């Protein structure tokens, strides 16, 4: 479970998140929706511990992330998978090396075992044939798939975070990425946070939905609850997307 309690984040005098409360139950996928610049990605940064709130606290499985020191944070993140907007693959490494990176860093597995795991993960995302290619040789969709495989390399990722995983992709590729995200959740029973502004993709992957506006959470709930919200911003958002 991930819980944000009265979390406030500010860049200088600009408040990005204003005392927000959010709870993502274990094994569920929470989709965070909102306009660009509304603070969606900031929530992910707080959960990762790369950004410290001005006030409030972030709990992951009842562990206060703000109380962890640098080494504790690094250890905590080892059970976390993150898929960045553009993949953020290491461009000096091949696809296989990108996926193997976590295993090289945190396990003492022999090379043949690492390769076996890398091939399994790449097969899972349908890219085993690209194992020796460089990220620059891949399309946007393929890069996201590799990023998902890399995020899964931790043997049991308890939390998976996705930052706009389908932005800039065509509808077919977007759907395949969403299907893949669903499969990942089924496989690892992880707690997921997905940041997006695409409602179609949100409905494909989400169990719960949160709307952020003006640094505040304006609604949280299931698809039905969101669709029946009386908030004019949400109604406009839903109508524009449909």
């Amino acid at each position, binding site marked *: 479970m991930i819980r944000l309690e009265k979390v406030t984040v500010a860049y200088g005098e600009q408040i990005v998140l204003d005392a927000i409360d959010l709870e993502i139950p274990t094994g569920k996928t929470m989709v965070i929706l909102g306009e660009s610049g509304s603070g969606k990605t900031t929530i992910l940064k707080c959960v*990762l511990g790369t950004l410290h709130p001005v006030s409030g606290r972030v709990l992951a499985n009842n562990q206060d992330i703000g109380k962890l020191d640098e080494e504790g944070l690094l250890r905590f*993140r*080892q059970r976390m998978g993150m898929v*960045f*907007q553009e993949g*953020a*693959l290491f*461009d000096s490494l091949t696809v296989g090396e990108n996926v193997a990176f976590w295993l090289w860093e945190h396990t003492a597995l022999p090379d043949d075992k690492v390769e076996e795991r890398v091939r399994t993960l790449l097969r899972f995302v349908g890219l085993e044939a690209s194992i020796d290619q460089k990220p620059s040789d891949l399309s946007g969709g393929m890069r996201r798939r590799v990023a998902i495989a890399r995020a899964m390399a931790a043997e049991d990722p308890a939390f998976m975070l996705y930052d706009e995983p389908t932005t800039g992709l065509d509808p077919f590729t977007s759907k395949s990425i969403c299907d893949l995200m669903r499969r990942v959740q089924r496989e690892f029973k992880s707690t997921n946070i997905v940041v997006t502004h695409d409602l179609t993709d949100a409905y494909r992957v989400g169990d719960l939905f949160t709307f952020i506006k003006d640094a505040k959470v304006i609604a949280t709930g299931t698809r039905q609850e969101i669709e029946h919200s009386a908030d004019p911003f949400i109604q406009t958002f839903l109508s524009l997307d449909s």
Partner: protein
Amino acid sequence: MAWRASPFRNSCAMPVKRIFLFLTGFLVTVQDFTVMVGRSFRYLFVHFRLRESLLEMDRLGVGSIPIVFLANLFAGLDMALQFSVVMAPYGASNLLGRVVATSIIRDMGPVLASLVMSARVTAGITSELGMMATTQQIEALLVMGVDPVDRLIAPKILAGMVMLPVLSVVGDLLGVLAGLMVAEFGAHVPGPLYWSGVRSALTLPNLVNGMLKPFVFGFILVAVGCFYGLRTTGGAQGVGRATTKAVVYAAIWILVANFLISKFLIDVWGWKL
């Protein structure tokens, strides 16, 4: 509102505010740099990465051999030529070998190798780390539970401190050999006389000078490159800005350190030649 009139505008407090902001910015920069360097050295002792260090030594050091050699070759040629012209009227051509070797070992060799390397290595490191920072690759490392200072910075700093002295020594040798060519064929100083001068310049103070400087310069050119690379923001333009800044600062700090080390070795230890 962001565009509202500042209370400092058109007032005598404005310069004070600027000085205050500059000083706090400078102190924060010094603090961040010190923390990065401190953590790098800590990782070198508690989590030494042999493979990455060797790879960096190959990239930083072996890859720089041609330019360092070329720079030292022509510096040696030019220095011998200039000294022979200046010394000949005083009948001091027999000291040519000693003067050329002393200049190259104590100052020109390490400084030249470092400045040439800063153009290649500092720029390369800053742009590489800058691109990683702007494409979230540094963040990806953190998310995977890997400290970028451990994985990227510490091996580079070690490589700089090991490889620059090595390159500097070989470059010194090449510079001295280039001087021999000028001595033999241009200044008509016999080879054995030139060599005996070179041998007399191989004193302990000169050798310590010649090894300590590239060791420190190697640290400076890599650490400055890493520091500005990690702080890069603002896409391709930001990478360009950070790279320019890193190369300029590395060159300045190398020259400052060169003077301070010379001063320290000459004054404090009382070493002359």
